[in-house]
């Protein structure tokens, strides 16, 4: 059953030192800022964060990085014009980085959530990012063996949850959220608001409640 939390701090209380955290968001879009702020307040450290980017400006993920709570980033595109907090940590050797092609990252997470043991992927063949990985030729094409990537916790930003825990998202803020929600031992979701059961058309549910463990509503304002 989905648990509804009063506060973001209560929602992230399941995150422990050393956890691997799947963090939704394409840049700041779809990123659960209130959950990250609560994680900073909670002070959890030694985290591995799996996310598309590595923080921008001084808020959200960048703030978590600045506090030294992250040991390793697994992401696709850390370098942005305002990613200076990550850049400085990386160049000072204070954070590990694993770069993964974006489609491979999301498919590895999907595989974890869908019970797939590993998969052969055509992306990255012959590049640095496939070095040392097993390859296999199938029907005349070369593929790289990729393994699932699961989280201890997923922190997901969504738009609305009903009181079952079914989720809908908003526009391009959907992105990684529905995939990450399936692939963690505990999925914690930040929504703008919750609605009664039946208020979301069942045909329109994007993430079914079975994937959602905790929900906190934080309002529309960031």
């Amino acid at each position, binding site marked *: 059953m989905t648990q509804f939390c009063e506060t973001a701090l209560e929602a992230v209380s399941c995150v422990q030192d050393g956890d691997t955290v799947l963090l939704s968001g*394409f840049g700041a879009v779809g990123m659960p800022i209130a959950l990250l702020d609560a994680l900073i307040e909670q002070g959890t450290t030694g985290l591995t964060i799996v996310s598309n980017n590595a923080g921008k400006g001084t808020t959200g993920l960048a703030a978590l990085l600045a506090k030294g709570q992250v040991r390793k980033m697994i992401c696709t595109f*850390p370098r942005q014009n305002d990613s200076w907090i990550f850049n400085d940590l990386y*160049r000072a050797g204070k954070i590990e980085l694993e770069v993964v092609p974006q489609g491979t990252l999301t498919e590895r997470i999907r595989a974890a959530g869908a019970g797939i043991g590993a998969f052969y992927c055509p992306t990255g063949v012959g590049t640095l990012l496939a070095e040392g990985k097993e390859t296999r030729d199938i029907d005349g094409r070369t593929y790289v063996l990729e393994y699932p990537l699961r989280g201890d916790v997923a922190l997901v930003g969504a738009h609305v949850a009903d009181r079952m825990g079914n989720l809908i998202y908003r526009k391009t803020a959907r992105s990684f959220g529905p995939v990450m929600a399936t692939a963690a031992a505990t999925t914690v979701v930040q929504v703008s608001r919750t609605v009664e059961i039946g208020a979301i058309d069942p045909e329109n549910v994007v993430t079914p409640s079975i994937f959602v463990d905790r929900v906190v509503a934080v309002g529309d304002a960031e």
Partner: protein
Amino acid sequence: MNGVLSKEELAATVARDIPPGSYVNLGIGMPALVADYLDPLAGVVLHTENGMLNMGPAAVGDEIDPDLVNAGKMPVTELAGCSYFDSAVSFGMMRGGHLDVAILGGFQVSATGDLANWLTNAPDAIPSVGGAMDLAIGAKRVFVMMSLLTKDGEPKVVPECTYPLTGQRCVDRVYTDIATFEIAPEGVRVLASYGATFRELVDLLDVPLIDHTGALAALD
């Protein structure tokens, strides 16, 4: 002959070569300019990797919605008939061969169509690949859009890429400010040139070039 086509003219040139009705992904940076030159009547559908089809032009003023951005995280708009989907579906569209054309920026393209566009050899470079590798090997056709020469005047169409690869043998066409090239099995075909003669291109580039008539120029 440097910079014969402006970025805008280059974008217009690429836009004219996209078949009507195509599903197209525009990479970040210069390729994003192509959107401004597509004929609205051509029915080209733009895909953005963060999970949208039929993306509209850049959003301005009241149109800006913080939940609606393109791959470069710039605010964009919806066109009628657009759709949203998650990241796994979006990249399945690429790898599954559903996109007709991907237009990517480039650091280097080799004579055999290898692409390097994600990482330089600079010691303090921060590796960032995004969706480039997925697009390079996934789209049915890959067009690269770049200047032909580096700031130091070095050619970016090369015998072998010296920067780390994005994809092997994945590029179909290279659109530059000085010439447009097609990567063909028999060599690099010059489809158009702007202010440079074929002979000048042969002298400039260390790759086997084929002129408009199909004749292969001898390398010196």
